[in-house]
């Protein structure tokens, strides 16, 4: 168990492959990856790409990042961004939590291009399963945003056009607009 971790790089989202090449070049070793509910797609993507460069990451659940920040264990945070402009970045849901935590603990947050676009909203059924197995059965009411807007004030660096502009960022900054695009979510 990696209870001795310290000075870690926290990465979140499905990054383009060259991000991992850069990590190797920079000799970054202690990496923590968040699960990334509901699909876990981004953490699996990260684990596979980190394996290619010889790094075994430490996995935490999405609700455990605060613990690492509160213990002073995080040295930097990287978010995969799907689109960026001067006002901020569109990232995977959960990125804003890390950005706010980082700001609160004076830890720098950087963005790097995401490997692919994500749709704005998932379905309630996405929360009924974990790792392909049932968590809850029956019809549930759920809100399942898959992306969120991280304002520039939380980010150390924003590179213009670094992410894919899959969907207009203007339309995706607010969850209510996501809801309008995605329709009813029950």
């Amino acid at each position: 168990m990696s209870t001795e971790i310290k000075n870690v790089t926290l990465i979140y989202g499905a990054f383009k492959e060259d991000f991992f090449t850069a990590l190797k070049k920079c000799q970054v070793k202690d990496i923590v990856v968040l699960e990334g509910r509901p699909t876990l797609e981004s953490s699996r993507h990260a684990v596979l790409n980190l394996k290619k460069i010889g790094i075994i990451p430490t996995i935490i659940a999405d609700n455990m990042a605060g613990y690492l920040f509160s213990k002073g264990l995080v040295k930097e945070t990287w978010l995969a961004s799907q689109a960026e402009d001067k006002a901020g970045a569109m990232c995977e849901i959960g990125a804003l939590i890390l950005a706010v935590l980082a700001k609160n603990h004076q830890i720098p947050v950087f963005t790097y291009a995401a490997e692919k676009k994500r749709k704005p909203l998932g379905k309630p059924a996405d929360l009924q399963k974990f790792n392909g197995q049932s968590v809850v059965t029956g019809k549930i009411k759920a809100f399942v945003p898959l992306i969120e807007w991280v304002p520039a004030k939380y980010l150390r660096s924003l590179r213009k056009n670094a992410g894919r502009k899959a969907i207009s960022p203007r339309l995706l900054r607010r969850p209510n607009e996501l809801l309008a695009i995605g329709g009813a979510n029950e």
Partner: protein
Amino acid sequence: MKKESPLFWPAYLKGDILFVLDETLVPKQLKYVKVRNIDEAVAVICEMKTRAFGQFLVVLSTFLLEFNRQPQLNGEELLEKIRNVAHALNHSRPTFPFSEVTSVVVHWAHGALDAGQDVRAIVIKNVNGYLQGIRHRRLDRVAKIAANIKDGDSVLTHCNVSGELAMAAAICREQKKDVQFYCTETRPYFQGAKLTYWELKQMGADVTLVADNAIATLMADKMVNKVIVGSDRNCANGDFANKIGTYQIAVLANEFKVPMLVLTQPSQKIKSGADIPVEIRDESELLQFNGRKVFSSKVKGLYPGFDVVPHHYVRKEIAIDVH
């Protein structure tokens, strides 16, 4: 109160068997595990079959259970037994202040022996009286929670507060308050998805499930205007420990100016959150789900069971009356 959640009082003693609600099976099954001795009591706590208030119920009831099992013990032997039971329970999970409860029972037994009284009768009477008192005080707190929820509120909660929020939601409903609840999944055991969502629904509340990582969007977009969480351990300065994930909710609530209300059990035993030991659980509980690996490649895992939240993030404590 019309309805009571099964999670509000999830264990009961019948003869020499303690029946404990297996919360890992809820809502699929309401199954009660049979606990026959101290080892089995420690096991249901360590395996998280019971948690939060259920643990305290198990801790106190285990003394009665052991008494019922061994009617032949004299006063001194009972005191020794109580000390051994207390020791085992105190060391079952490090973050919980079980010793604050078990030391009271030891004190009762010691006092009865010194006074030449019937240790068994005194301890049984006091434990039962204590439990009755807790029950009434928790019901009082349910009413306090309901009073703190206003018409039109949208409340975010995390993990599970052993029936109290759900029963408060039922009161709000009776009072015709229009209230929306959001509950987090609460990885890795999904207590939010399994317990909180279910019991709020059972009480007729309007509840929406969200992933643990969706809380910032909820707050940034003003979809919630209040956070209500429980606490597993409280400090003299107002710091508290609660389920992992609570710290980041607190930081976000502060950032987005959402008031955070915490259900507390006031205690002066420890000064501040820095003195609370945080339990680090086995990584397999994070890296496997229902016995199946989450990642095919080799990974490490870190599973801290709790967060410690500084008091300055708390807008209001909804305390249980401890006097």
